[in-house]
């Protein structure tokens, strides 16, 4: 099952490699990973998407907690949460597809953020599944480039991941 594991880590060089190193050393899989500073400049927020059994996820969380640079860890998938991913996708848009991609992007509530005579660049935000569905709706031959941020998430309600 897919899990979104979110953590606060010390904003220090090497902290990220401790996390990614743990995954490679113990044979866990990283499907996506995103990291950026928070409002507290001593902390970064790292979100990663992994796939594993309940037992594997439990081990992953325990081992993450053991890392000195990891301050706090949660498995977002355990409770209600909001998941978002950003995608920028460049499409070959000529002939009938210039109209078609405008309609399709509208249906998926995406935005065309750059236009040339032959291409559109579409920005889309949503759950990973939605982005996957948008890609699936397009002829692969017309997709020129895809950039995805990887999923990030936040707990619903008043609960927060903070120290």
């Amino acid at each position, binding site marked *: 099952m897919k899990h979104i594991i979110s953590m606060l880590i010390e904003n220090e*060089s090497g902290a990220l490699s*401790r996390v990614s190193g743990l995954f490679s050393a113990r044979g866990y899989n990283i499907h996506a990973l995103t990291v950026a500073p928070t409002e507290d400049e001593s902390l970064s927020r790292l979100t990663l998407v992994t796939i594993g059994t309940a037992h594997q996820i*439990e*081990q992953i969380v*325990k081992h993450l907690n*053991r890392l*000195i640079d990891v301050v706090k860890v949660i498995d977002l998938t355990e409770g209600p949460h909001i998941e978002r991913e950003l995608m920028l996708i460049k499409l070959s848009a000529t002939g009938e597809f210039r109209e078609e991609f405008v309609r399709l992007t509208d249906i998926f509530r995406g935005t065309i953020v750059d236009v040339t005579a032959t291409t559109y660049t579409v920005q889309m935000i949503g759950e990973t599944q939605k982005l996957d569905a948008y890609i699936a709706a397009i002829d692969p031959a017309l997709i020129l480039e895809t950039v995805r941020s990887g999923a990030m998430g936040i707990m619903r309600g008043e609960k927060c991941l903070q120290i």
Partner: protein
Amino acid sequence: MELTGAQILIHFLEDEGVEHIWGYPGGAALPIYDALDTDAKELKHILVRHEQAAVHAADGYARSTGKPGVVLVTSGPGATNTVTGIATAHMDSTPMIVITGQVATDMIGLDAFQEVDTVGITRPIVKHNFLVKDVNDLAMTLKKAFYIATTGRPGPVVIDIPKDVQNATSTYEYPQEVELRSYLPVVKGHTGQIKKAVEMMLSAERPIFYTGGGVVMGEGSEELVKLVKSLGYPITQTLMGLGAFPADDKQNIGMLGMHGTYEANLAMHHCDVLIAIGSRFDDRVTGNIAKFCPTAKIIHVDIDPASISKNVVVDIPIVGPVQQVVQEMNTQLAKLNKKPNSEALQAWWSQIDEWRNVDCLKYDTSGSKIKPQAAVQAVWEVTKGDAYVTADVGQHQMFAAQYYTFNKPRRWINSGGLGTMGFGLPAAMGVQMAYPDATVLCITGEGSIQMNIQELSTCMQYGLPIKVVCLNNGFLGMVRQWQEFFYDRRYSMSYMDSLPDFVKLTEAYGHVGVRIDDPKTMKKQLEEAFALKDKFVFIDIITDQQENVYPMIPAGAGQNEMILV
């Protein structure tokens, strides 16, 4: 007080109470070595002959005393040579500090002379590591390192100090306290869980204690003995746990696992309540996980939450320090005023005694060759069972574990997790430094000893009266044994040809060498060798080449599927 980074390091180590530091100088550590000369008062530096040995020596010191072992080396090859030692300490949870010199900060990343990414290389084999970029952070970083290395589940911590940071100056004050927001080791086990565990123990009909190195490291021996004695249950100890419970006590049914006793492994297989304390369900203990303790409810006490339910899912996990948890178990047991089921226990013991009567550790003594088992037993007799024993890795290690009866904790020092050949002699140096008047011996083989034989020179320089007991069978014995059992006797590369004359070699280093090849004179020769209290003696014992370690659970088999002879 305004000091250089190098001086801060030396002052800090003295303020922290460090007495010994093992190391080897080099370019990027020269300012520290200079400060050692000018500023050190009590701190004693021991110059080894290879950096790997420095780490094993610090490891031996730490395992025998419980205090952190400290290592100092230079950058590049100095740092990479420590890697095997650090991994050894990490696998066996030894508290250790490794200080490495590094090229100056403005040279980092430029492929400078003797530059290596020490923090990157050691990251997977340390509890934590630091690169100190600012001399103002040095003292606090050192404090954090000692705190991390010695608390919770102990482990090695590496501190990489660039040369310009060693030369830069800062005011120094010993940091009395340290706080790490992301590191809060558990100091107390959950009372409710402990209560449940005690109740489960009392309800058992076929209970067994399975204890490991955590009891030794966590100073839990005294409380454990009290608990096991008051319940009257059988106890089996892992390779790392030997000595935490006296081996000569009747309740001790020997080591378990791949080369454990028949009675211990069968009792594990048939038990209904398994009380695991400071042990980690290692594959050498469990055998085939699918066949492990099929009828048992499992209680697991461990300081490290990540050890719980890692290999085997347990019923009652208790995260906490062994000493505190077992002490509370004793308190609750006394309060409950309930006794174990004596009828069931009696039946259980008679079953165990039946297994015991198989006498799985017996061996043939009729031949003219020295049996390695007999050699270990003779050493035990000559040292009255009261020595500190280090070992290398292989058959001799298993014979030592099986036949040297360990009755006290911290007396048996071996590389259990990583299985590092070359560990024994340098580890013995660390132990002898810690206990100058004690009998310290290293049980080794002619393969392992050659992996750090250069340390004979260190032993001469510091007058360390270690006794090396080399069980010399001319084979990489454990490799040969596996090849005999599982590879149709194709002895690929397991024969040790062109061995040196160990007696002459030892003498060349200025020590005493003895060769023993006759079972009849063995005891007397050993007595003579051990009588040389102030001398380093290398005892080369020529043993039966074909002897195997029994019993044995082949890899992938269950605990009840042992090869007996």
